[in-house]
Every structure is written in C-alpha cells, then in structure tokens.
C-alpha cells in the first residue's frame, strides 16, 4: 500500500503539565496527537508508580504526535519551551503513514 514519510514525536511528561503541552502542540499548528497513560517508571528523579495515587503530581503521560517531516522543527521548538524546565523525555522516530492527506 502507498505510505508516506512522517515523524513520530513522543513526549513523556508529568501529568500536571499535560494541558500546557497540548496548548504548545496546538500552537505549533499540530492538531493531531494521542495521549497514552504511563504506569510508572524511573529516571534521574528516581522511580515512581501511579498505583494507588490520588493526585496528578505523581504521574506522567505520553503524548504522541504523528506529523509531516517539515513540521518537526516547529513542533520541537514549541514542545521544548514547555519541557525545558521540566522532567520528561522527547523522542523523534521516522515512520511511514497510511492516508498522509490527514496530516
């Protein structure tokens, strides 16, 4: 099937920052993204787990955007302004997409 080159940007960020990250993504002109739950993990700030937690403070989410390659820089800059002072991981992966007209 016909596929098209795209980039997948995955941002793992603290849950209380989700709203701001979404705003930043939309500001970069990207309207498509999905949010995946993260159950726990470990990093420089130590291990954590969502289990039994009530507050947002403890948790993280992963925001994944599939974009056209030419939008990458704009998106990363916008995202960076949010994650800059915060913990979190940003990865970019090459991928192919079906139905590229959607992006």
């Amino acid at each position, binding site marked *: 099937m016909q596929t098209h080159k795209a980039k997948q940007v995955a941002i793992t960020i*603290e849950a*209380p*920052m989700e*709203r*701001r990250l979404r705003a930043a993504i939309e500001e970069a002109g990207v309207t498509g993204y999905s949010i995946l739950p993260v159950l726990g993990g470990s990093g420089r*700030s*130590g*291990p954590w*787990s*969502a*289990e*039994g*937690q*009530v*507050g*947002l*403070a*403890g*948790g993280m989410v992963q925001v994944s955007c599939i974009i056209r390659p030419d939008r990458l820089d704009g998106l990363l800059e916008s995202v960076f302004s949010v994650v800059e*002072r*915060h*913990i979190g991981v940003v990865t970019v992966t090459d991928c192919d997409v079906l139905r590229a007209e959607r992006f």
Partner: protein
Amino acid sequence: MDGFLSLAASNLGSPLILSFVLGVVAALGRSDLVFPEAAAKALSIYLLFAIGMKGGVSVAEHGIDLRLGTSVLTGVILSAAMPLVAFWLLQIMTRLDRVNAAAVSAHYGSISIVTFVAGTSVLESAGMTSDGFMVAVAAAMEAPAILSALWLISRGGSGATVDADLWREILLNGSIVLLVGAFAIGMIVGKEGMAEIESFFVAPFKGALCLFLLDMGLVAGRGLRRSRDVLTPGLLAFGLLMPLIGGMAGAMGGLLIGLPTGSLFLMMILAASASYIAVPAAMRVAVPEADPGIYLTLSLGITFPFNLTLGLPIYLAIARAISGG
C-alpha cells in the same frame, strides 16, 4: 495526661489507624499489594463529596452564622502565614536551598483533607460535635499557602510565576470544587435531602475511609522506602515539629475567634496538616526545580502518619484543655 494517653490508645487502636499501619507495613515489606489508581481516585471523590455535603447540611441545620466568615478568614490567614514560619524554620533546621524550602513550606501552609476527616471521626467517636462550616475553612486553606510560597521564591529572584492558567488550576482544583460544591449542595438540600442519600454518604463513610487509609499507607510506605536517603535528621525533625507549631497556631487562631472545642480541634488539624495532593501538583508546574522527593516524603511520609497517630490525640487533648471543653 491520663486523658491524652487513653485518647492516644483509642486512636491507635481504631480500625482507621490500623488500616493505615497495615498499608505502611505491607509497602515496607514490599508486598505486591496495590490499589488501582482509579479506585483510589474514586474513593477520594466519594470522601470529599461526603464530607462536603455533611458540612453543608450541618450549616443548613444551624443557620449561617458570623463565625463562618471569621473562621474562613482565620483559615486563609493561617494558610498564608504558616509558610513563612515553615520557611524560616527550614532555613534554621536544614540545608535546603531557597526553592526547596519554599516548596516544602507551601505544603505545610495548606491542608490534608484526610487528616481533617480522620479528625471528624475521632470527634464522633468521642461523642463531640463541630461546626459544619469547618469544611469551608478546609477548602479555603488549600490555596493561599501556594501563593505565599511562590512569593518567597520570587523574592529570591527565581522565576516562579503564576499565569492565569495556573491560577485557575489552583483555585478550581478538583478537591476544592468537590468540597465547596458538595458543601453548597448540602446547604441547599438540608437534612431532609440528605436523608435520601445518607445510606450511601454517611453510614458507610468510615469503612470507606479505612480502605482509603490502607491505600495512603501503601503510598506513604512506598514513598518512604524510595526516599529514605532524602531524610536528613533536620528534615525529619522539621516534619515532626512543624505540625505541632501549626497546631498551636491553629489553636490560637481558633481561640481568638471563639471556636468551641470540636471546631477548635479541627482548626488545629487543618493548620497542623500538610498537603500532598493539590500543592505537589501546583509545585510541579510552577517550581519544577524543587525536588518532589523532599516535599512528598516530608508531608506524606512523616507529617501525615505523625498527625494521624499521635497528632490527633495531642490536638484533641490541647483543644479540650484550652477551651475548657
């Protein structure tokens, strides 16, 4: 003293505290016992809604009185002022930098609603009453401390700013909305309206609180296990001393405005307790440089268990002594 010992014993032997202890022990022993996140959140919604509504119904019963206003005001002042005390103490007792010290102090100005709820159930067991509006005081005390702490940080030149979004998040955070909303519902429906739903919100309340405290014990124990190294003797001492200071501040505020014993006790608890839900979330957004390992360990791992086990009987004994209750 005698009264205190028997209070302490009966508190420590209550199913609420024992459930919490079970959670801590299970977590320290690294049992795989866990609460699903969704269940913990659902339980907390239930508890907040129930406690808010009960407060509102009680206010509807007894009529709004001037003391509601003065109590809320006292609460707001306490919440705003205590971070300054905490900050000063932290600079004396520990080596925390300005940002971490301010972040910690925000937690101590704010409140722990679960400690408050545990307090109301101690009152109940002791056959004492309190004013329904103390729930409104609790809601009012959540946020001011955050602003004081941010002010402390910004005075130090660091760029912690509160934008409109963060303002809304702080003031309309879920637990405030639930408490205030349910309080309003309680005031509107009154005792009659409550009657239809009290076999959900009143009778099973204490049992549900047991399960919630079990979960809090699991979370606190897990946090302690992970953050042991963070706990210097200075921090530990602060985590035990600050609630006592807060409790005394609450007592003075409450006495000034003439609160009766039960409400005085609750005011002391509010001042003595430290937030571990609303404030941490705000700190992650506004002051990401501050280490959650420090403020969460202190408020959830040290001060919360202390208040729950020893603090409650201490505060009640003091409240009784000074109010002649």
